């Protein structure tokens, strides 16, 4: 019996990933792995300066390399209609007008692209290209640059922030977080093939095929339907695939230039500056409470880094208006332009950053108030309504998350004062924090194809980036139809399938679940229509009255009126039965507010002599509404918690202001957690359906697993050592010197 045996039972249920076997056997193909006849290879050449203008690009040496087909630069390129002039570039909102400008905004910005028969030839030739520039001043140091940018209001002020001065206890502190890079295991890649002058086929790594389709339809001024995007397997995204990035356009341009299918895969070093990152952030919090622990108010100021060619505001103070009641609240924000590529959403975007500061400050306040941090939070949770828009929550069980988490970790063993539990050179402490996320839902479509034997294929364009969308669709379809899971196949990640939103913001399952339910209803009605020809009882039957099984259709009436699929198919001369249906949010959004939430607890030890932090236990309890697929959901939560460990303890993209450069671009230097950094994450769910959000009652889970994790860890370090560390990542040096 091994780890992968079916009986292995960590989180219980046996709901296998529909794509699992294909992934672990290698049969599943990631974007770069497709075989396409006549494929050639493109490699990008990056600028060696961070700001200025290209004066001259020397491609002569590169051209001597055998197998070179062409070299694209801003001077030699197929014009992309959507980038034809400045106005169009602005409108396209691609960010970087790749190869349509001679301006340099960041180091590594593509200035040339070599297209060759083999990847090796293209890579070698790319290394021979040199350029001359007119350099201008570049700034990449967030900490230095942030001082020059003034704050502006972010949202409406509540109450009067001056009231904070009357609080019995206040905490006022600054928090800094270094930039983090998504770095999913699969590197971003595109294979582009022009099937005709206005027909394009793409194998592409992304988190939303329809968004890719729309972007390129606009850029090339061709109908959306003329672009086919295939992203059936995606090796992680964490937000890096939510945007359409310039390298994908470069690949399509290359295919146009050489009139052949072209593959372009980013290298790992390029992954550090081509597909976004979580920007560096500075925050200041002033938080106050009365002696009974009731919050008086919060003043939250935040700045995040952005690029010089786009403004990306992460929304750090959004979460300030989500979890607790603050009668007096003021939020201010600013973005800080830097000569770096544009940042983007990364798991728990904004909220994860803001939450670290808020939850650290609350912990600090709890010691000042001599109050248990759990009790302090419980006292101030906004359980009745959304604290900002005042709408009642549809459901919000954050209090249950906290209670359950406290019980699981054994919170009662925590010492109220810091530095109380010593084991040799180690100090042991407990910490906790909570996180929440506005739970959304988008319009999505799903289709079902049914065969005579009752087997169905459920389809959507939505991707499954590893979150378990596929297995969850299968579960919903099984629950709604009664058809065995073994007879339900899933097809997704292809723009030829019914359209769906991108997979992000914890909206994936919330959106597609309703579409699957709607498609099942459509299937039931269609089957009932045929059945009515054989049995009048089916006339006017509503979906809720109709039962399906592996073998046929029946009604919820005492005598069921069973008709086999075989009989229906024969009688009506059917081949494959197809239905498609859409579903989306509606009036409930005017009545209720929606949120997912989680409570994070940890127990850790800190070595006082070496600064080493070792996590002993981590507990994460989430309210994600009804849990559709427990294994996949638990996997989301534990993966996010591990991401939180990275954010808390090690992930950091360094920069060098003098050289205008990122420092380091490989996994030997950019650290994310490995197995021994993370204990087995203990995950639990409240698992109560939200009756209003969507038919299946599930709220998204992708983000809340990481929102609060870093603060829980920092708070535990304080409990262990009395060191209040407010700058992430908390590497051993900061622990030692703190």
């Amino acid at each position: 019996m091994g780890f992968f045996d079916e009986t292995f039972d960590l989180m219980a249920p046996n709901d296998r990933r529909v794509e699992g076997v294909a992934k672990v056997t290698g049969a599943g193909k990631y974007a770069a792995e497709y075989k396409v006849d006549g494929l050639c290879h493109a490699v990008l050449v990056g600028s060696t300066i961070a700001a200025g203008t290209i004066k001259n690009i020397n491609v002569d040496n590169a051209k001597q390399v055998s197998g070179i087909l062409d070299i694209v630069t801003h001077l030699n390129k197929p014009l992309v209609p959507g980038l034809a002039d400045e106005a169009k570039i602005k409108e396209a909102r691609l960010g970087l007008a790749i190869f349509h400008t001679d301006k340099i905004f960041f180091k590594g910005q593509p200035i040339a692209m070599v297209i060759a028969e083999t990847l090796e030839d293209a890579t070698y030739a790319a290394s021979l290209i040199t350029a001359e520039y007119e350099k201008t001043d570049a700034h990449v140091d967030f900490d230095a640059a942030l001082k020059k940018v003034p704050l502006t209001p972010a949202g409406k002020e509540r109450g009067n922030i001056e009231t904070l001065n009357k609080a019995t206890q206040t905490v006022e502190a600054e928090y800094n977080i270094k930039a983090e890079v998504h770095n999913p295991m699969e590197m971003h890649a595109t294979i582009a093939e022009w099937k005709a002058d206005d027909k394009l086929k793409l194998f592409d790594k992304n988190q939303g095929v329809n968004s890719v389709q729309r972007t390129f339809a606009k850029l090339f001024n061709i109908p959306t339907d003329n672009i086919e995007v295939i992203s059936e397997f995606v090796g992680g995204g964490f937000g890096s695939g939510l945007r359409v990035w310039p390298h994908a356009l470069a690949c399509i341009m290359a295919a146009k230039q050489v009139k052949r299918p072209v593959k372009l895969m980013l290298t790992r070093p390029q992954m550090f500056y081509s597909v976004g990152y979580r920007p560096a952030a500075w925050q200041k919090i002033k938080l106050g409470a009365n002696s009974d622990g009731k919050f008086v108010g919060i003043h939250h100021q935040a700045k995040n880094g952005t690029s010089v060619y786009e403004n990306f505001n992460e929304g750090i103070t959004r979460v300030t208006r989500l979890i607790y009641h603050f009668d007096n609240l003021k939020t201010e924000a600013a973005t800080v332009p830097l000569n770096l590529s544009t940042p983007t959403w990364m798991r728990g975007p904004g909220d994860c950053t803001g939450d670290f500061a808020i939850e650290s400050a609350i912990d600090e306040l709890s010691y000042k108030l001599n109050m248990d941090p759990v009790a302090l939070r419980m006292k101030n949770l906004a359980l009745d309504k959304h604290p900002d828009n005042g709408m009642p929550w549809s459901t919000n069980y954050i209090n249950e998350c906290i209670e359950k988490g406290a019980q699981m970790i054994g919170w009662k063993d925590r010492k109220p004062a810091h530095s109380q539990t010593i084991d040799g050179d180690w100090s042991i402490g407990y910490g906790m924090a909570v996180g929440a996320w506005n739970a959304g839902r988008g319009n999505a479509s799903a289709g079902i194809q049914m065969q005579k034997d009752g087997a169905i294929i459920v389809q959507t364009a939505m991707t499954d980036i590893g979150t378990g969308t596929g297995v969850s669709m299968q579960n919903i379809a099984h629950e709604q139809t009664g058809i065995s899971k073994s007879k339900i196949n899933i097809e997704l990640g292809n723009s030829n399938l019914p359209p769906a939103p991108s997979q992000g913001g914890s909206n994936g399952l919330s959106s597609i679940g309703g579409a699957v339910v709607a498609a099942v209803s459509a299937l039931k009605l269609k089957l009932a229509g045929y059945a009515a020809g054989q049995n009048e009882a089916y006339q006017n039957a509503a979906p809720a009255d109709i039962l399906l099984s592996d073998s046929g259709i029946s009604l919820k009436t005492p005598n069921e009126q069973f008709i086999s699929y075989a009989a229906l198919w024969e009688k009506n001369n059917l081949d494959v039965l197809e239905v498609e249906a859409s579903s989306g949010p509606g009036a409930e959004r005017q009545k209720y507010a929606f949120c997912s939430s989680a409570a994070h607890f940890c127990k850790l030890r800190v070595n006082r002599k070496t600064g080493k932090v070792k996590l002993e236990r981590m507990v994460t309890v989430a309210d994600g509404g009804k849990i559709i697929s427990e294994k996949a959901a638990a996997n989301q939560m534990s993966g996010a918690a591990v991401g939180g460990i990275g954010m808390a303890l090690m992930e950091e993209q360094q920069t060098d202001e003098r050289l205008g450069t990122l420092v380091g671009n490989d996994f030997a230097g950019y650290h994310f957690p490995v197995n021994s950094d993370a204990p087995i994450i203990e995950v639990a769910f409240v698992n109560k359906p939200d009756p209003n959000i969507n038919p299946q009652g599930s709220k998204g889970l992708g983000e809340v697993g990481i929102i609060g994790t870093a603060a829980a860890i920092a708070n535990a370090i304080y409990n262990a050592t009395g060191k209040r560390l407010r700058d992430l990542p908390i590497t051993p040096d900061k622990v030692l010197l703190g």
Partner: protein
Amino acid sequence: MRPFLFSKSSAANQALAKKNHSTQFIAGGTNLVDLMKKHIANPESLVDISSALPNKVENTTKGISIGAMMRNSATANDAIILAKFPLVAKAILAGASPQIRNMASAAGNLLQRTRCPYFYDVTTPCNKRQPGSGCSAINGENRMSAVAGYSEQCVAVHPSDLCVALAALDASVVVNDKDGKTQTIAFQDFHRLPGNTPQKDNNLPANALIRAIEIAANPFAKNNAYVKLRDRDSYAFALVSVAAALHLNGDKIVEARLASGGVAHKPWRWLAAEKYLKGKTANIANFEAAANIAIKDLKPLSHNGFKIPMLKGAIETALKQCLDL
């Protein structure tokens, strides 16, 4: 990567015959291939020496000899190593990942190049990569850099863990030069300080091969420890590391060995601290005193002052671990 010719040699003299300034030996390739991909090493040809050199641990009259091509994993699991020089196994297992250790050779580990991030980025100045271009680290991101033995020219550290144990154990490096002559270099003299020639990591003669690493018999098999501090629990290069070994007579220290990684351009021996410990009682107070002696004259750079308290903690921890404290 620049295109290159590839050949395989089955004997050392054959490999040496092919070697010149534009040829490079390749063993496990775990460092060299990365350097080629990043255009830091640009050889015209590679000679695969994986079948040309010994790959076993052998007992010799003086101690043991580790074949240059012995893989790091095999060395860490070798019965002779585990019985006589377990510190070597501990240091190896604190480095890299199982996959890399399966490929990495003993000689390659000695010759791996620094992990200074600027050295790996050909768009930045670096005296080690391009002599005379300047040192980006000395006034830049130098958190990982040296706190001793550096020069204005270069502040990089040697990244190996194995070498720290070998330095502590006074190993030596057996070298075959181009004419087939064999020469033995004391481990302490093998790696260099940067001085004015930071491009030279070590004193391996031009176009020579490492044939083996020898360790003379010693009384440190019982009480030894390797402590490595890094930004994560595994699979990261050292911020600082300490190899400690004690020869005890009852609770008296007959002899002590202390060496560190993450301190200098070469594995760093704490000779004054070793001297202090000699003849003392093995207890926490003396360990702390020794650690204080070690860190006394270190000269941190702008971003690595933390290495001083961290080294102190790591030395104390390693010495305590020698006693299972």
